[in-house]
């Protein structure tokens, strides 16, 4: 019994490895096609703007709520530790650093992965199984350019914008909490915030969310564009887009942390 199980596992491991290599080469081809198509005319400006609206403006309510609550909760949770050392006046600086360096990029990316990534995966998956992508192809329209390039550009451009917005809403939430507990004016709060964050913090976070945005768009499009097996495939594409994106976002966050630390020399 044991021997047979081991035998099966041994036999399936090379097959699994082979499948993984095929998937990796597929993904590389998909990313390569994006970079090939993105610079070639015709440019679908109208569709890019529509997608930017879908990704950016339509995410605002959710981002506002989560960003604001993140600001309040983080401030509230940090206060007792700082109060022990009589350092509650450091709250604005602490919150600013946490928000800009990690919380805002991560919160924005995770919200976008859940809302936008799944949406793209499901939409393109459904278009694939109902032959809408084939219909574009036979009417001499490049579906990759119209569907994939526009969506990836939209997520890549809008994620940094949403991240900046999350920082401001988060700071607003933090300020609301701070003013309820400490005698701090808005001017003092803002001054502390801007003194705490450096150009490197902002620049690194913008670059990071740029990469997060690219990942969200690319994974959602890849999963949806290559989905199969009818409606079951659509569900799987949406689900897999979210799970894969979240996993990749955390890996990228870890890598970004190492790079920024190396630049800072810490």
């Amino acid at each position: 019994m044991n021997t047979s199980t081991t035998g099966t596992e041994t036999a399936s491991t090379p097959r699994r490895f082979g499948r993984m290599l095929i998937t990796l080469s597929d993904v590389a081809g998909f990313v390569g096609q994006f970079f090939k198509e993105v610079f070639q005319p015709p440019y679908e400006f109208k569709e890019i703007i529509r997608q930017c609206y879908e990704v950016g403006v339509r995410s605002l309510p959710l981002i506002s709520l989560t960003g604001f609550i993140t600001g309040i909760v983080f401030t509230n949770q940090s206060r007792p530790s700082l109060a022990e050392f009589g350092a509650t006046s450091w709250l604005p600086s602490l919150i600013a650093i946490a928000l800009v360096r990690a919380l805002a990029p991560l919160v924005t990316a995770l919200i976008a992965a859940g809302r936008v990534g799944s949406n793209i995966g499901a939409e393109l998956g459904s278009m694939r199984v109902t032959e809408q992508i084939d219909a574009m192809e036979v009417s001499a329209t490049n579906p990759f350019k119209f569907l994939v390039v526009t969506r990836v550009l939209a997520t890549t451009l809008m994620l940094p914008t949403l991240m900046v917005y999350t920082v401001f809403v988060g700071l607003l939430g933090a300020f609301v909490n701070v003013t309820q507990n400490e005698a701090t004016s808005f001017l003092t709060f803002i001054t502390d915030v801007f003194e705490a964050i450096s150009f490197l913090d902002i620049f690194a976070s913008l670059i990071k969310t740029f990469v997060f945005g690219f990942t969200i768009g690319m994974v959602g499009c890849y999963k949806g564009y290559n989905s199969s097996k009818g409606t079951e495939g659509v569900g799987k594409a949406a689900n897999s887009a979210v799970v894969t994106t979240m996993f990749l976002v955390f890996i990228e966050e870890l890598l970004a942390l190492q790079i920024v630390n190396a630049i800072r020399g810490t």
Partner: protein
Amino acid sequence: MNNEVVISIRDLRIAFGDYKVLQGVDLDLYKGENLVVLGRSGTGKSVLIKILVGLLKADSGTITAFGQQVEELSRKELDALRLKIGFSFQNSALYDSMTVRENLEFPLVRNARNLSRKEIDQAVEEALDNVGLSQTINQMPSELSGGQRKRIGIARTLILKPEVMLYDEPTAGLDPITCIDINNLINEVKERYKTSSIVITHDLTCAKAVGDRVAMLFDGQFQRVGTFEEVFDTDDERVQQFYNYNFVEERRMS
């Protein structure tokens, strides 16, 4: 119909894994004719026309369309060829997120970028008029019936004024009255747009109503090609079974 061949298929073969779908298909489509491809589900009828427009790649064989060998065309050349070939999908494949107007405009604005707004509007209205659905112009595909969706799908392909029409199961899933409407529309399109067509179906009523010639696909090859009467004037058991089920069994059941 004349003797000018628009599309010529020679020794076309395709397999999906171990399953051999087309095993050496030969066929000619003549200018101005409606050619009906008949066969049971899974015999590769739809696969055949998808290979014709480059949606699938054959394992071997040649397709010559308008004097060009399809499998040797570059992306740009294939797109140019696709403008001459309209493809009506089995499930219409209308773009869900667009209105009927936007569905019809989509191929037009992408392939004739110098058209004015007025010319685009005129083309959309004309195409909708020709399928008798002008009133649906601002509706979403989800608001249309199955028959209407088929018609809009056909209108969307006609807007580019193709020379060849490929219909994939045009009457599948429709009630008998709507089937007759769609059959009439296919014949009207042929007359009005002077198209040559390949109609994929397993519906003999449709085949009889629209087909100038009928080709029966069995075991990955065309076993019988000719007029409707010629094709079914045979003792071949498979052909007889197909005929009896469509015309005798279905009527008995209904």
